[in-house]
């Protein structure tokens, strides 16, 4: 599903590479934690998958496609197969929960009757039934993140990328979000989650890829957060 071969990424005007000779392969349906301290290259790793950045060297394959050979106008098609969730939710404050989720479908040209059928289903899935008419401000942080997950998942992507999805949430709320991501993973969706949250990683016992200064220092199935902290 996702393959990085000897990938390095140098940003201009920086001495140290953000990623250095990274080789990682993630199969369809896997759940992978990407751990490491700030500046270890987690964000660059995720940005490469979306073709927001191109690697300086090495190749990146996502969903069977070599991203280097993917032409500019085919990038939207790639991104339709990848859902994204962020630490800061990134909801539109002047749209309701329903409209926020529907927005993701509207902008890719889905029919209205499809939207009216699919959006309530996904709101049920994330546990927000009956809250479609609320504005993001009226929801708790955990609920807002559920809206963001609903938006990322509504188009049934093959891959879900989560960048510190629990970073702004308290531990008990985080557990709920992790259960939701686990449920999404069980539908066959590959989940790649960057996190700092040792408790979550330790309790989930999933594959862990640790980055340090742009290098993969650990790749463990059923791993824990690590020893360095």
């Amino acid at each position: 599903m996702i393959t990085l071969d000897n990938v390095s990424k140098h940003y201009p005007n920086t001495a140290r590479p953000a990623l250095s000779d990274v080789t990682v392969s993630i199969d369809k349906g896997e759940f992978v934690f990407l751990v490491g301290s700030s500046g270890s290259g987690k964000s660059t790793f995720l940005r490469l998958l979306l073709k927001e950045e191109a690697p300086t060297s090495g190749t990146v394959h996502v969903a069977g496609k070599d991203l280097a050979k993917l032409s500019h106008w085919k990038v939207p098609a790639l991104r339709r197969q990848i859902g994204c969730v962020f630490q800061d939710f990134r909801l539109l404050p002047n749209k309701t929960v329903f409209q926020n989720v529907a927005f993701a479908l509207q902008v890719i040209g889905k029919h209205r009757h499809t939207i009216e059928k699919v959006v309530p289903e996904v709101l049920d899935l994330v546990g927000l039934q009956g809250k479609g008419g609320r504005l993001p401000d009226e929801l708790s942080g955990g609920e807002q993140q559920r809206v963001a997950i609903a938006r990322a998942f509504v188009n049934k992507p093959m891959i879900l990328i989560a960048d510190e999805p629990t970073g702004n949430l308290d531990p008990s709320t985080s557990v709920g979000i992790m259960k939701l991501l686990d449920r999404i993973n069980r539908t066959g969706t590959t989940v790649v989650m960057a996190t700092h949250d040792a408790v979550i990683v330790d309790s989930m016992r999933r594959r862990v890829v640790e980055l340090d200064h742009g290098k993969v220092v650990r790749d463990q199935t059923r791993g824990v957060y690590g020893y360095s902290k």
Partner: protein
Amino acid sequence: MRSQFLASEVAIGLRRNLTMTFALIITLGLSLAMFGSALLIRKQVDLMKDEWYDKVEVSMFLDKSVTQDQRLTLKESLEAHPEIQQVFYESSADALENAKEQFRDQPDLLASIGPDVLPESFRVKLKDPAKFEDVASEYRGAPGVFEVKDQREFFRPLFRILDVFRRAAFLGAGVALIAASLLIFNTVRVSAFTRRRETGIMRLVGASNLSIQLPFLVEGALAGVIGALFAAGLLAGGKTLFIDNLLSKVITFTPFVVWRDVWAVVGVVFPVGVGLAVLLSLLTLRKYLRV
């Protein structure tokens, strides 16, 4: 992207950026009206040239000592000349009559003109007024000819002034259009900035480049259309107030641009306005909306 959704996005965009959009429409309208006025001024100058240059003729003044034979020879030669459309003969007496008509407000001047002071002449109308020198040189120095004069010489300074006027109008319109262009550029940039959250999400969920840019382009086109309508209104109003109700009542010796000319100019101003707005929006988006 569905049209209904597009329409609601455009409405939100315009409302959020209302003062800027308003300023843009007014500036664009005014500068397009200036551009249209410049086109109309050019048309007006052309009309005056056509009218006056066509009426004025070449005058061939004859020697006082001209003989009847020479007069006849000249007349036949002029009438047979391929470049000449019409020939009139004006005797000294006719010339005096015309002068009396022309200078009736200046009796002192008239008193100084005796019956034989004004020379007799042939009034010659050329098929192509630009060929004056060719024809004139043929007859200069011919027996009985005193002088050949192009009456258009009198109008040259006037048209030189009108030309300066016309150029100034185009220069002003150019400056105004540049100002409008900068404003379009800035409005679209601000619009792209205020909606970076939306466009960021659109990008992430895989909206095509076109559907991300389309709301901005439609907004630009809409501002262009409204600005052009505003300009058309100003031009029509200017024609009614300034030409129909003022100039044409005071100045009767020249024709003025008619409504058909105004609509022809509107037909130019419209695509220029809308095209400018869309093109600049597109260029600005390429720079400021990363897709």
